[in-house]
């Protein structure tokens, strides 16, 4: 398994895109911190950037990478190797290098300008979000044989998580404004890892007051240790469930 992970990582490093992604994150994070006079404000701008760009790049790059590795996978499947190991090695290789890219790209600026618990939490959430979207890419590719269709599904999924989901939540909130929905919103936010990450960071930045009563409910729930643990377990489940489902499917897949 180690050997395959090594080959995957070498192959990804040879592919310049991950290096460019690291550089892009590095430059934008540095410039965001330099633009704002207050580094906590910088963190907020960075948050929005991370929650937009990181899922997009992780999801689309991984999807295309897995499709392009179909030859590699086919070659390995006919060899004395466990299918689980092939698929998981590919996952660890991809998730590992994407997380590393994120860590270098945003970790260095955060350490330089905002080496606070909130900064570290942002690094942690960004890393989990990277892993979650790589896992979702594995799930979409294993279910769609056709490359164009698979990439299309990946783009739609990103649109859903990054944009559509919030729209749907807003729509529900307005339609049912007469009902006490605040608690339900906490539950709904668990359905989207990006939103969950955003709420967790915003609560730490002390601007949750801007979110009105819902913000207070969020604070009541996610502010407690239990709420925090529930949020992190949910994020972990978001990464484990897609990859587990994809492994199950891959074991039965015809190549």
């Amino acid at each position, binding site marked *: 398994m180690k*050997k*395959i992970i090594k*080959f995957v990582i070498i*192959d990804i490093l*040879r592919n310049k895109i991950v290096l460019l992604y690291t550089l892009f994150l590095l430059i934008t994070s540095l410039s965001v911190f330099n633009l704002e006079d207050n580094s906590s404000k910088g963190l907020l701008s960075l948050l929005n950037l991370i929650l937009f760009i990181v899922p997009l790049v992780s999801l689309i790059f991984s999807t295309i990478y897995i499709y*392009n*590795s*179909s*030859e*590699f996978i*086919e*070659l*390995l*499947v*006919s*060899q*004395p*190797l*466990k*299918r689980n190991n092939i698929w998981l090695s590919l996952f660890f290789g991809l998730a590992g290098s994407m997380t590393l890219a994120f860590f270098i790209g945003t970790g260095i600026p955060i350490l330089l300008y905002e080496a606070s618990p909130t900064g570290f939490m942002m690094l942690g959430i960004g890393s989990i979000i990277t892993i979650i979207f790589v896992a979702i890419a594995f799930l979409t590719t294993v279910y769609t044989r056709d490359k164009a269709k698979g990439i299309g599904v990946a783009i739609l999924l990103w649109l859903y998580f990054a944009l559509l989901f919030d729209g749907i939540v807003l729509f529900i909130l307005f339609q049912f404004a007469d009902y006490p929905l605040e608690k339900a919103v906490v539950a709904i936010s668990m359905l989207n890892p990006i939103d969950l990450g955003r709420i967790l960071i915003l609560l730490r930045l002390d601007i949750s007051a801007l979110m009105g009563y819902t913000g207070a409910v969020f604070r009541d729930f996610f502010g407690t240790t239990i709420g925090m643990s529930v949020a992190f377990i949910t994020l972990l489940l978001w990464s484990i469930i897609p990859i587990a489902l994809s492994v199950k499917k891959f*074991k*039965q*897949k*015809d*190549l």
Partner: protein
Amino acid sequence: MITVNNINKKFGKLHVLNEVSVTCNKSECIALIGPNGCGKTTLIKSILGMVVPNSGSILFNGNNIANDWKYRKHIGYMPQIGRYPENMSIGQVIEMMKSIRKEENTILDEELLNAFKLNQLADKRMGTLSGGTRQKVSASLAFLFNPDVLILDEPTAGLDPVSTEILKEKIRKEKEKGKLILITSHILSELDDLVTHIIFMQDGKLRFRKTIADLQSETGETKLSKAIASIMLTHQQ
């Protein structure tokens, strides 16, 4: 050595393998033949565990291959269309396979590697190779780890006559060592002098499994290709 029991495989509505049962033993050289799309490659891929049959079982040395992977140590597989990571060089692919498959007591068989002079092309990227060179890489990899079973899917397609001769000579050598060799091929005349058994498939069904001698005496033809042709014609009617 390999026992296939009533396997079925459907791709959507297409019934690619229909109750196929067959046994392959040591030191046999079996030609798997049949018209295009009759399920030859699917049968081979099922044996390799690349395709998972809908029902039925496949035994390798008496053990069911479902959810097993270690048995593939004993198989060398040359695919019909060798697909390799495009941006790896020949040398890297070979090194990778060695690092995956080599165990302490494996004796590498680099005869084909040297005969095809692939070492001189080691820096070439797989994506830039011609179909024939790709076939040479596939063939060399199949024989490299001295496996007990060789599964060759259309081994001579795309190879020039000189390389075909080299490969045939190699197959003959391995056959004499008592290995099981399973070949699919359309160009029957090339196999005439190698093959000991024939498996004939049609429409996903296994029509017969015979020795060459039986086949020749039944059809009255001495040339394998003619014998097969006459069988195919009778089956079509």
